[in-house]
């Protein structure tokens, strides 16, 4: 009896191992033969649950009416997107026909060969890609002269600030008396941190000069990168050597820590995007380095107490972190023609404009400068300049790892676990070791 049991167990184990190995292949074979040339009637898209996705959802019915192809949008939290995408892209077939790619996955996805090159589709259908802002196209459009994506929306960072605080005559007079110069929108980081600390000092706990987000890895990394770029620093030299621990970088981290400790709300070192946003939306902070599209949310009376009292400017120092998403077709998608049909449609001028008017964040220059769009969002003149002047996280396969390392070390420096220089030296060392 015992012997039989063991034999049986061994047979079941071997069979289960074999069946698990072969089942994937059978599935692939049947799916690919079913999809070939048949013309898909449904497209599945994986997107992030953000406002821009909602604006796409609002227009897709038009596409279905025009083409007869149903569009299913699965919107998930950012944190679970990468984990959901990678296994799908590794499979022989993907359950997603279209995906959206965050700029810091671009290097990884293109390097692994997971995205369908779009050049032949673009050339055949004469889709004009010159309409895109150059910095967007270089980030979430082409990689090494091959087009893999169409830029979907931008999230370049900017300085969102309270107009009523920066124009407060009482504060202005006090600042003039204390520092001998006018309180205006700062054009460099030293002045920004100085003003920030001054506002916090003057207003105690009711109003902070700036709200910051020190949660690792993404919030703290993307926030500090504005300080880095605006101080003349960067990740790499032109020859590819690491320069993230040079004097400019150390200076910018010193300013960042100073602002975090002496101007930002207590506990900002643990804030993520939502916590920081809520502090600003509740009217407890004078400035916030954040995504430019946040302005539309902050101007919405249902979501913020500061509607009508906020505006957007470039990050002090003038060079912010660029960010954006691109539409892409997975190489293992079922019917790439149907996918391209949707991409071409959703990024056409009319639909891109419609999404922008609903509140979407544009990537096309012709949408940015469109009179209807500008009439509704006059600050897009500034946003367009912010995007053009911004820098991006390097397009390398290791970008997610780079942000993880950076976030950990910045958090160490902010929490006092390491000196700024030592933290940056660790970042430089570990980035150089990344495979």
């Amino acid at each position, binding site marked *: 009896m015992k012997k039989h049991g063991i034999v049986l167990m061994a047979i079941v184990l071997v069979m*289960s191992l074999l069946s698990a190995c072969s089942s994937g292949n059978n599935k692939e074979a049947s799916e690919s033969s079913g999809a070939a040339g048949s013309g898909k009637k449904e497209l599945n898209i994986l997107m992030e649950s953000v406002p821009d996705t909602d604006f796409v959802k609002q227009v897709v019915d038009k596409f279905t009416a025009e083409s007869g192809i149903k569009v299913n949008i699965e919107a998930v939290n950012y944190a679970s997107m990468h984990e959901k995408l990678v296994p799908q892209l*590794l499979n022989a077939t993907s359950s997603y026909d279209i995906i959206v790619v965050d700029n810091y996955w671009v290097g990884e996805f293109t390097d692994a060969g997971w995205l369908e090159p779009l050049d032949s589709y673009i050339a055949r259908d004469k889709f004009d890609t010159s309409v895109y802002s150059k910095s967007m196209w270089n980030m979430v459009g082409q990689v090494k002269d091959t087009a893999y994506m169409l830029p979907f929306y931008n999230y370049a960072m900017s300085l969102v600030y309270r107009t009523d605080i920066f124009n407060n005559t009482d504060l202005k007079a006090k600042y003039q008396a204390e520092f001998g110069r006018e309180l205006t929108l700062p054009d460099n980081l030293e002045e920004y941190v100085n003003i920030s600390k001054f506002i916090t000092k003057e207003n105690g706990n009711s109003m902070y000069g700036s709200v910051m987000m020190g949660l690792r890895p993404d919030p703290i990394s993307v926030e500090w990168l504005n300080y880095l770029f605006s101080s003349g620093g960067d990740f790499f030299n032109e020859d590819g050597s690491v320069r993230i621990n040079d004097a400019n970088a150390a200076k910018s981290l010193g300013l960042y820590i100073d602002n975090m400790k002496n101007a930002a709300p207590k506990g900002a070192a643990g804030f993520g995007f939502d916590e920081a946003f809520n502090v600003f939306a509740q009217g407890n902070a004078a400035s916030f380095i954040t995504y430019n599209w946040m302005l539309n949310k902050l101007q919405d009376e249902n979501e913020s107490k500061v509607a009508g009292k906020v505006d957007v400017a470039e990050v002090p120092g003038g060079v912010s972190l660029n960010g954006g998403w691109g539409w892409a077709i997975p190489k293992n998608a079922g019917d790439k023609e149907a996918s391209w049909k949707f991409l071409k449609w959703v990024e056409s001028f009319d639909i891109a404009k419609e999404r922008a008017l609903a509140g979407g964040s544009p990537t096309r220059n012709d949408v940015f400068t469109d009179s209807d769009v500008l009439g509704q969002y006059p600050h897009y003149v500034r946003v367009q300049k912010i995007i053009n002047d911004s820098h991006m996280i390097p397009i390398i396969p290791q970008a997610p790892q780079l942000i993880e390392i950076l976030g950990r070390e910045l958090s160490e420096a902010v929490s006092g*676990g390491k000196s700024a220089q030592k933290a940056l030296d660790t970042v430089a060392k570990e980035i150089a070791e990344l495979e």
Partner: protein
Amino acid sequence: MFSVKRKQFLIFFVPSLIVLAVTVIYPLVYSLIMSFTNASLKKQGFGEFIGLDNYIKAFKDTYFIDSGWNTIVFTVIVVTLEFLFGLAVALLLNRIKRGKKIFFTIIIVPMLITPVAVGLIWRLLLHPDLGIVNYLLGLIGVEGQAWLGDAKLAMMTVVLVDIWHQLPFMILLLLAGLVSLPGEPYEAATIDGAGRFQTFLHVTLPLMKETIVVAVLFRVITAIKTYDLIYVLTKGGPGTTTEVISYHIYKQAYTFLNTGYSSAMSYLLLIVIMLISTLFVRVSRGKPQPR
């Protein structure tokens, strides 16, 4: 060909064996093989066989060691406090006659919430500027704290949230043990003139030994594996003060894509958990009685 008994054996045993093989044994064997390779999510398949390199790397990895240390601190504190509070509450609930069900229902609520939701709820409550915890502290004149943003406080905050979440589990198990205790030893103790404390020490605790071992062992295992609460509350920060081992392994697998290395670390964790479990089981059996 088969006797009736054997047919019954096959009918009842095979389905569960198949389920077990597919869901438990297959992943275990797969990840064990993977732990000896340089497998990465960047490439398909197992990668190359590299022997014990991943295991050796883990012992040299200061982040792995540090996160291991954080895990030990976290586990020891939460399990000790949860056991002490849990036992106290269970004894109390066992004694009260009226309203027991109401108390019990209220106490058990946190356990029914998923860890991610617990994390999100507490992130809101503990917001230094807008959260209710600091607001209430302010009303009684206590200065609000940066619960999750202060490197000195963050681990303690995570511990408190975990206790809030997991204490009901401890109460539930210990109370079940208390309720099922036989009445005779207590009667004997009363006749012998034992006081309440003496009865607790010499009757209740020895009788409860196995229940306590099971409850503590369960919590030690789940505390060592804590991941979701850290993911939502601190992401391991500020700095690396709350980075626990499961979170570190997760990042190696899904951010750094080193599935081979993360499998090796998972196996090291598994070995530690198995050693602890064996130790607990030995303790619960106690020394053999002299014949």
